[in-house]
């Protein structure tokens, strides 16, 4: 009889437990597997940004003046790659695209949701390091989204830095 009396408690704990397991599974599903998408050209940030120590703005030219950092056109690539590493198949493909006047169809890695107004310019002007959101891209091949761009990340940083927390600053 005593055992039977525990049934209600068992049921209750069962529900709580199931909810907890579900939550853990959900959280696990949310984090990506740590692998970025395969890009049409295996561009290495390590070579360009770490080894060659090019500044981010060397390629992402509009990051200081625009909401968007700007994905470089093939013109920018060809400044060096007309002469550099021309034996590599990826560079040959790049050259071909450039000559045909076609863009490289990069796959977007870092995205904010549809309702978010995000401007790189303001963050660069506030001297927020690129790595604060993008983490260190030089150690990622291919580049992947390390930090999840959820509202908590944005708003906590805004609070910490005295940036506006009016919803309409970011929500559009």
């Amino acid at each position, binding site marked *: *009889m005593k055992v*039977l*009396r525990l*049934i*209600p408690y068992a049921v209750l704990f069962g529900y709580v437990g199931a909810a907890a397991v579900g939550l853990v599974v959900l959280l696990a599903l949310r984090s990506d597997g740590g692998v970025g998408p395969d890009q049409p050209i295996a561009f290495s940030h390590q070579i360009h940004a770490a080894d060659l120590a090019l500044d981010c703005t060397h390629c992402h030219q509009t990051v200081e003046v625009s909401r968007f950092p700007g994905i470089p056109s093939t013109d920018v690539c060809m400044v060096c790659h007309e002469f550099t590493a021309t034996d590599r198949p990826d560079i040959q493909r790049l050259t071909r695209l450039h000559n045909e006047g076609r863009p490289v169809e990069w796959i977007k890695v870092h995205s904010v949701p549809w309702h978010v107004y995000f401007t790189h310019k303001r963050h660069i002007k506030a001297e927020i390091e690129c790595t604060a959101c993008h983490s260190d891209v030089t150690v990622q091949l291919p580049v992947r989204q390390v930090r999840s761009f*959820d*509202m*908590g990340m944005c*708003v*906590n940083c805004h609070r910490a830095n005295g940036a506006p927390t009016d919803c309409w600053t970011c929500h559009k």
Partner: protein
Amino acid sequence: MSSPRAYFEKLEIDVLAAMGKPSIGYLIALAVSATCFVVGMGLWGYQMLFGMGVAGIRHPVGWGVYITDFVFWVGIAHSGTLISAVLFLFRAKFRSRFNRSAEAMTIFAVMTAGLFPLIHLGRSWFAYWLFPYPNQRELWVNFRSPLVWDVFAVSTYLTVSAVFFFVGLVPDLAVVRGRAEGIRKKIYAAFSLGWIGSAKQWIHYNQLYIFLAALATPLVISVHSVVSWDFAMSIVPGWHTTIFAPYFVAGAIFSGTAMVLTLMIPMRKILKLEDHINIGHFESLAKILLFTSLIVGYAYAVEFALAFYSGHTFEIAHFTYRLLGDYWALYALMVFSNVLLPLALFVKKLRRNIPFLFVLSIFVNIGMWLERFVIIVTSLSKEYDPYSWGTYVPSMVEVGITIGSFGLFFTLFLIFTKVLPVLAITEVKETAL
């Protein structure tokens, strides 16, 4: 009545017989109710998939049948607590015949009511945002919004009612345990929490019961007051009035009592409980009905008086519209059902006429549903800006979901009649002495 012991024996047998093998009629009723419920849920799914637009609500009538249903079911939920808690505190003996069913009805009605705020949301899947829960965004709910108060009021009411219901059930579950066999016996044993009916247990039990009754009593007032503030706190002419809280509480008790009659009259017949629930008991309910009807009728009059006495352009225009506008027929039917017809209860013969009470209770149910509909819809139809006037007609989806809500309610109630004692056996014993 020969002897108390014989009566107690009969009572136990009769009540437990009611929990016996279901009849064909019962199964059909259950199947119909359950089907209605399933269809209603299907329609809700359809609405979520395609958008709120499948309902008839429109600009400017943003609330329609769903909120009407919500208020209606919350109202129904009221008599349970009234009968079990308030009348318990007032030592009204006739209560013992109805309290079990009324409490069950309360819980099922609150559960049904609780669905409607979800159904009426444009994005039901985000309903959990209405609860204050800690999150990394540090986003909180808006405590100025009466809808948030609603969330608290209704969930509190559901919790307290459920606890009260369960506590009241414990001695009866022990009775059932004593007469059940097999797995059923084990289940009832588990839920009767080791009740053996010792004097010590009874002392504790009675203390707890009276404490819970005292706790539940203010909820009778608060829940429907809060629900009424959904309207009263707005600036909509026809809603924005101070009398709403008492007006709604009276209305809720009125409709809840009517629903008790609607359920108990057939139940008594079908479950053959005529020996235990008699005309006198129903007459007591009829008196509650008459009394609350008078309050409701008074509130109707006061609403108009306030509007016209205020000299407020919009209030006057609104109440003129409510009486004579597009929905005049509904308003007239409502007044007939809620105010005029119940006046017949002044006649003792009618008060003790069970078929009449049953018909009356149906009218009151309809009338009270219409009351909420009229308040919500006529107020929104013609607000301040004449450009944005428009009339609302419910769509089949809304009608279907409303029928589905009745399906849910009756399904639960039918299941209740078979798994739990429909009369509070121990209390009937107490009061029968």
